[in-house]
């Protein structure tokens, strides 16, 4: 040691440094942790408590009462509101519909977005234009999109009615039919959000190292092989993120449905949030509505955390 010190002072210095650093960092962490915590945690904690934890706790409390919002909640009903939720046919329909939206997103919307993204992520002529066009629906407010599509689907004056008249057929009224209304809504959901997923994929595609694809080219891979064996695995984290957004978006879907069908006909297009609004808010059943809110919260938290744990662990 002493020899090396004398012969190679530079190395001694370099070797000594890593030994000292962890100790110093540990010490500094110990000392600096609390002031930082005390300074920066309270604002965020306060906001989170006031805006998230307190309302959630309040909703949980109300959910055990039969209460219309007037006066104080006094009529304690125990778990009755929760029993009513799970006995309500409209709620199970809402759960099914939320599931359908997720499935349609995974089976139709995301593949479509991925396909379009692979086509227009390369610098071909007009790519930018198409990116803009495909992204436009996402920019629209949900309510506006719902109102536009209500008109499109209209059998008397809308586009669908017009096309039917053109062929001399009886115009369909998809939004007025229990069996077709949900599919009509799925169409709008896909139309509205595929552009958003496409943008995610374009960003993901641009992050892929070109040299990997070049190497595949040199190895003689076909276009499809390149996509399946190189692009898709490298896009994995983006796809998982996309699915996550689709799940969360499905759970939040509300303002597009209200102008389209309002959850009808016969509750065939309720989602959990429209159910909460239609059965809790407009009926002034604050207790029942709070119980729906709690159920929705539990579902959201469970889905979000388990999805992150299982699928997005490495992202």
């Amino acid at each position, binding site marked *: 040691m002493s020899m090396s010190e004398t012969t190679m002072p530079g190395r001694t210095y370099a070797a000594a440094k890593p030994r000292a650093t962890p100790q110093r960092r540990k010490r500094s962490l110990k000392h600096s942790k609390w002031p930082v915590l005390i300074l920066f945690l309270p604002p965020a904690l306060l906001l989170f408590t006031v805006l998230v934890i307190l309302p959630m706790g309040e909703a949980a409390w109300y959910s055990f009462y*039969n209460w*219309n*919002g*007037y*006066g104080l909640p006094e*009529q304690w009903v125990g778990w009755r509101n929760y029993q009513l939720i799970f006995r309500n046919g409209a709620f199970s329909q809402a759960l099914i519909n939320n599931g359908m939206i997720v499935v349609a997103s995974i089976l139709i919307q995301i593949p479509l977005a991925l396909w379009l993204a692979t086509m227009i992520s390369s610098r071909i002529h007009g790519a930018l234009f198409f990116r803009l066009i495909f992204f436009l629906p996402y920019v629209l407010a949900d309510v506006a999109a719902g109102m536009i599509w209500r008109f499109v689907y*209209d*059998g*008397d*004056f809308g586009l669908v009615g017009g096309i039917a008249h053109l062929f001399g057929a*009886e*115009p369909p*009224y998809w*939004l*007025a*039919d*229990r069996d077709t*209304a949900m599919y009509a809504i799925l169409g709008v959901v896909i139309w509205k959000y595929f552009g958003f997923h496409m943008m995610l994929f374009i960003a993901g595609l641009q992050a892929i190292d070109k040299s990997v694809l070049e190497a595949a080219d040199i190895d003689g891979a076909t276009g499809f092989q390149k996509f399946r064996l190189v692009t898709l695995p490298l896009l994995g984290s983006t796809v998982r993120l996309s699915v996550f957004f689709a799940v969360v978006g499905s759970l939040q879907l509300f303002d597009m449905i209200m102008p389209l*069908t*309002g959850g*009808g*006909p*016969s*509750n065939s297009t309720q989602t959990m949030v429209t159910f909460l609004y*239609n*059965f809790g*808010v*407009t*009926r*002034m*059943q*604050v207790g029942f509505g709070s119980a729906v809110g709690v159920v929705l919260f539990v579902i959201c938290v469970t889905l979000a955390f388990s999805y992150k744990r299982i699928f997005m662990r490495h992202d």
Partner: protein
Amino acid sequence: MSSTIFQFRMFSTAAAIAAFSFSGANSASAESVIRWMHVEQLPAAVSLWTEIAKEFEAKHPGVKIEMQFLENQAFKAKMPTLLQSKDAPSMFYTWGGGVLKAQAETGALRAIDTALDADGGAWRSAINPNAIDGLSFDGKVWASPTKSGLVSFYYNKEMFQKAGVDATKIVTWTDFLGAVKTLKDAGITPIAGGGLDKWPLHFYWSYLAMREAGQKGFADAKAGENEGFMAEPFVKAGQHLAELGKLEPFQNGYLGATWNDALATFGDGRAAILLGFESTPGTQASNSTSRKGLSEDNIGRFQFPTIEGAPGVVTDSFGGLNGWAVTKNAPPETEEFLRYMAGVDVQKRLAKDTQIMPVAKGASEAIEKPLLKDVAETLAKETWHQNFLDQDLGPNVGAVVNDVSVEIVSGGLEPADAAQQIEDAYSLERQ
């Protein structure tokens, strides 16, 4: 230095106390503010109200009236918290029924009986008693009636003539179903319906239930007697509605149509009948594709038919009933202002300029349009005024009635199950 501050404090406290006692002693001459909360969007109505408020202010120095507007849905959502806060308005718009009752039960409101009975009951005796009854619970009047309404059938005279239907011959429900069939056979869509909004179809169930049960049967059901809403008349009402549904009387896609769509369907002449409000002859025009709609002389009106052998009579009417509720801490002049608003002269002006159905006796003279006049005369002779069920039975049961009405008419629900659902919901309210 410190003593100066002390003195200053003493002085300001004394001033505050003096000011407070002064205002207390002279509540009439000091500024007292009536805060008036409404949901009216019609510019003609708001400007007339403003004018009326100004007149009242001129006659009552020291009283100031502030109008506050909230959009309908926002108003309904905000009212529960607003009434319990110190920002509660002095008087606000009400549709009566279960919501008004719930508000009264919290102690947030002040009954207006004392004012109604002052001066030998001058105010009370000037108002249509059905309107006062409609806003009373537990023996007290909780709002000052301001307007009434009537739901009845409007029809396209040309279409009826084309199909050979005589509207004056529609007296019973069987007659009505016969007219629907005749219209359909003539290739005419009989009825315009708004199934998306649901409540336009709840008119049918409500009227049928009123006709089947009669006033006493309805009151019994509300009180929970004779199996409540599961009693026979209510099942029968559903069966009558199902009979109508089986004839497929509505325009294509009616389940996805809003009330405005139904108005357009009627106003464009795409359907012959519409069960609507007193204002429907006007709104069908503004909602039609051409914005002109049917001309008023092409529109006829008939009462909802009666049912053979059932106790309900043709003069039992179903329609809105609105008033102004007074809050607990409102200035005493609020009742005085409401009395002025409900006076026959003001009611006449309201009826003339804003086309409402007045509640003050004799005010309907001011109505000029023949269809409205006809409604006003019918209301003047009414034997029972039933408020809209989503108000009267409360928003929750009302929503159930709306739901089951659409389900029955579209064949998705058996009448007995529908009656059960209504009773299930209402039994919780009775507790």
